């Protein structure tokens, strides 16, 4: 059983505090994704788990064993680096077998493990080549092969796909997910790309400025963001947010003079005069005749389209509510010209309210 536990883990670089005492419990066999904007401390956290950075304070344990003072080689982890970090002077075969060779394993055992990993990742044709003779995707695969050869307790991935082109990235994403299903190890995966996080994770850990903001399944983060940062980070396009003020107990007056009712989830939690941000996703603002048919409270709005982004199965429409640019979605799209006025339906049940001062969600 290989749980990974972080307890009040802090990292200082000189005087600069990069990670602010985070707590995280990762279960055996779980696929956890650390996501967040660049510089938020994801890599630092991962490298502390790997043993490549000292832990300034707090405790990291792997499989119940505190590893703070153990070198990487005694933690039984594998890591895949962003720029692959293959050994340039070794062939693919030697790269794959290196960890077993330094562990002084039998030749035959090494060969068997290497061939098995090569089979899983489709590297058989490339075994005698040097890294310089491989494409980006092939190098990525070798890096992954090198990680699985050792049968580690935990896999650590640091932005493994960010050097690949978009198409290859999607392809490798699927392969990583398949790999996890096949080997079933605990995986901790770092990325700045929320799509990768959503598609891969059992659980997402969203970080900002060295803190953990929210931990949960992809759908929890999508449907119930704890603050405006999560709301605008997760999901594409990001959640629309409009400034407003609560009037009475049931109404929010948006900045441009438009009134919307307080969404059911927040009813009774707001006070008269409270400054809020009203949030909804593009999927919940759709033009009439091009919307999902759903029960529930709706508001009707007439809005002018300013820009369109056709994506095939849907078109993203840019428009304006109360002086704030918002994005809407059109299903079964027809061509729309900028300047056209359409009737939109806003699904009120799916809307969110955030306190404007704390940015935190107001939810029952």
């Amino acid at each position, binding site marked *: 059983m290989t749980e990974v536990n972080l307890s009040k883990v802090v990292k200082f670089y000189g005087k600069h505090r990069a990670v602010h005492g985070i707590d995280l419990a990762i279960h055996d066999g779980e696929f956890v994704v650390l996501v967040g904007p660049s510089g938020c401390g994801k890599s630092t956290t991962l490298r502390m788990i*790997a043993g490549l950075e000292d832990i300034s304070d707090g405790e990291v344990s792997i499989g119940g064993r505190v590893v703070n003072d153990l070198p*990487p080689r005694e933690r039984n982890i594998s*890591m895949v*680096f962003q720029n*692959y970090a293959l050994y340039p002077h070794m062939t693919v075969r030697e790269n794959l077998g*290196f960890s077993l060779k*330094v562990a002084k394993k039998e030749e035959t055992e090494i060969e068997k493990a290497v061939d098995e990993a090569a089979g899983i990742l489709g590297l058989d044709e490339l075994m005698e080549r040097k890294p310089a003779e491989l494409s980006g995707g092939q190098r990525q695969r070798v890096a992954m092969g090198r990680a699985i050869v050792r049968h580690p307790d935990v896999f650590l991935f640091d932005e493994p796909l960010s050097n690949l082109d978009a198409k290859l990235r999607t392809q490798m994403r699927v392969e990583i997910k398949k790999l996890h299903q096949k080997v079933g190890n605990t995986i901790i995966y770092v990325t700045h790309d929320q799509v990768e996080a959503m598609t891969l994770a059992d659980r997402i850990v969203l970080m900002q400025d060295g803190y953990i903001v929210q931990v949960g399944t992809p759908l929890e983060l999508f449907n119930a963001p704890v603050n405006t940062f999560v709301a605008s980070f997760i999901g594409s396009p990001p959640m629309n947010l409009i400034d407003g003020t609560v009037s009475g107990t049931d109404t929010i007056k948006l900045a441009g003079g438009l009134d919307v009712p307080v969404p059911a989830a927040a009813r009774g939690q707001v006070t008269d005069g409270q400054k809020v941000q009203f949030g909804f996703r593009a999927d919940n603002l759709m033009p009439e005749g091009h919307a999902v048919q759903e029960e529930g409270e709706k508001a009707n709005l007439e809005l002018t389209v300013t820009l369109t982004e056709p994506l095939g199965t849907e078109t993203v429409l840019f428009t304006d509510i109360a002086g704030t640019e918002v994005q809407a979605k059109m299903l079964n799209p027809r061509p729309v010209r900028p300047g056209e006025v359409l009737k939109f339906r806003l699904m009120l049940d799916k809307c969110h309210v955030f306190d404007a001062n704390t940015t935190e969600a107001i939810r029952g």
Partner: protein
Amino acid sequence: MLRRRFPEWFVLLLPAIIVIAAVVLIPLIFSLYSSFTPYKLTRPSTLWTWVGTYNYEKILTDAKFWAAFGRTVLFLTIVLNLELVLGLGIALLMNKVTWGQRTLRTILMFPMMFSPILVGFQFKFIFNDNIGLVNNALQSMGFNVALPWLVDGKLAMFSIIFAEVWMSTSVFAILILAGLFAMPRDPLEAAKVDGCTPWQSFRHITLPFLMPFIFIAMTIRSLDVARAYDIVQIMTGGGPARRTELLWTLMSRTGYVDARMGLANAMGYVSILLSIVFTIYFFHKLSAARAQIGMGG
């Protein structure tokens, strides 16, 4: 009248060609020619006597020459290996230093800034058996000895090697340090995660990466050391009784003291073979090492 027109590039290069011919080519041809004559500086007319390969045949059977030749090879081997080991050690230590590294690097270069002649004099004084620093230090530590550093054959060889290593280890250190700076950090981290001990990381990752830098240093230094002259000449003059005689001290003795310039030139040509062999060997190793780490042949 038809004027021959030279191509432009030739005209532009002509001054350079003339200078090179004057200072390199003509002396080279002259020395090669004179190695086939019994040319003595004291009797210029001997320059016109052709003796064929007589000088070369003489060298081939000359025990003194071969002793100097063998001693030079031995000297070269010991010096290069010592400098490599010390230079590698210094570079690895310097690479760990985080504070004041720039200053240390400059200090490291000091020995290279001295003229070899001065280094020779410096060590001649240090190793002097009466007034030298080493013996004085030994005596004040209570050893009642006066070691004949520059008089005993073995000790003299040791002293010369010591001086040579002191002067030039920094060539290795600087080049290897440059290699360490250029080294990517990722493979080392990958090796740590892959289970390497610090020694294994060094052996399997760092060292292969440094090999090209080491061979460049080897090539440069092998050419240098094969020509060792100044330090030896100052410290022992090839003595005592020729026991520190290297190729170049022998050649200068033959050419200028005995005035047998034809013979000395022939020795020069034979000993150049040594440098050529070492250079080819190290270049071969260099391109193999470069290919190994994927820098292309």
